[in-house]
């Protein structure tokens, strides 16, 4: 963990999104995944505004957002709450938070497959994901489905490959602009 000052900085863009939250709880009442969350979305926004960084990232609430946009649609203040959830996921990915690796490794390996090939190679991406998880049991949950999809010729047995780096220039430019923005 970094210094308190830096942590506050990291939450700033998210605080801007939820700044005018009136704590009405419409988001919590609308969230399909609320049943599995330790803190409700409403409480999470309160924690964001109160700079409770440690608690926010100890909690799994933000990783449970499935981007259904019910909260964004219904928020009486018109806040982009799904974007705020995504911004928290981005921080977890950026900092490789071990607690959230089941989600962050999924996103990262998906995006890596896109960078390499331009399009997602579903089999490669899932292989990369399973390898990165280093949990020998996780893939078994999907083995039956994998076999079914293979029989239907919907997936190929692709070994991960470097590809042509098709979208590497686009990714690099995105990273460059993001860096500039952060410095500014």
């Amino acid at each position, binding site marked *: 963990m970094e210094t308190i000052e830096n942590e506050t900085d990291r939450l700033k863009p998210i605080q801007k999104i939820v700044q005018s939250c009136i704590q009405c709880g419409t988001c919590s009442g609308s969230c*399909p*995944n609320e*049943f*599995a969350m330790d803190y409700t979305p409403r409480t999470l926004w309160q924690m964001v505004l109160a700079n409770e960084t440690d608690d926010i990232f100890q909690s799994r609430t933000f*990783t*449970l957002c*499935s*981007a*259904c*946009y*019910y909260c*964004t*649609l219904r928020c009486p203040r018109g806040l982009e709450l*799904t*974007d705020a959830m*995504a*911004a928290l*996921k*981005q921080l977890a*990915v950026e900092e490789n938070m071990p607690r959230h690796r*089941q*989600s*962050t490794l*999924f*996103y*990262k390996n*998906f*995006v890596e497959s*896109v960078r390499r090939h*331009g*399009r*997602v*190679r*579903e089999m490669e991406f*899932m292989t990369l*994901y399973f390898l990165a998880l280093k949990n020998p049991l996780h893939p078994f*949950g*999907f083995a039956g*489905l994998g076999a*079914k*999809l293979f029989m*239907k*010729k*919907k*997936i190929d047995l692709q070994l991960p490959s470097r590809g042509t780096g*098709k*979208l590497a*220039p*686009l*990714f690099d*430019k*995105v*990273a460059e*602009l*993001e860096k500039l923005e952060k410095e500014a």
Partner: protein
Amino acid sequence: MKYNYYPGCSLEGTATEYDIATRAFIKAAGCELVDIDDWTCCGASAADAVSHLLSLALPARVIALAEQQNDIDDILVPCSACYLNLKRVTTRIPSDLTLARKLNLILEQEGLALAGRARPRHLLDVITRDIGPSGVRDLVTTSLEGLTIAPYYGCQCLRPYAVFDDPEAPVSMEPFIEAVGGRVHPWDMGGKCCGASHMNTKPHVAMELVGAILKGAQTADAIVTVCPMCQMNLEAHQKKISRLHNEELNISILYLPQLLGLALGLSEQEVGMNLNLSVTREFRNRAGLTMEKREAIGNNP
């Protein structure tokens, strides 16, 4: 009508039948699809969890490609996640010039630029507002009378942008189910979430959500979907979910253009139904897809 066509990655892989059915149905309805050359991934829901700018740059590339390749403004998108990603770009750039400038800086490297012309449209939008129920009804050759169909919309074709339907109480598929002779299954699960990629990262959560949807449709003959992620979540884990809920929750899951295509006289093969993961024998019987007919087109039961 002519549309630029953006299938997206799923339709090249696990949702091949959605691509097959969309192409076949759109053609049968008298419209034309123009493939976008050299298209790349829109970032799905993963890019937005990694970088906000990347989640806009990836779909911006697709939009700029379409705008460069021809003067057709509409981009038809069958996948709800792809649709939302493209739509986010075209919705935001007119009022966010800083973003537009950044995206153009990124695209410039490939000699691309956003012209601001493109209009991403979900397949259901095109079916609803361009083809229309009468456009389908007039073409029906095989009525699906006697079938009760549960329309499942999912999230991202409805929310956050209310374009062609009510994002709280969607109804756009209903007149089409009726146009092909079917009955609409009365339920309120149509716009609920299937859990999306939670099925991979938090399966116990996604299976709760999908379980509730499958339960809600038990008296229907099939659920129809308009998104490859929804389709996969609903069709691929029925056995496990049945075990989890201690209740038989098997049901046929079809893509909307497959159902409509069958009514327009397309064969199971022509709408890719051999590739679905959950189509029950009862559904085939009730839909009049008899053994003889199936044998005639060389399809597996």
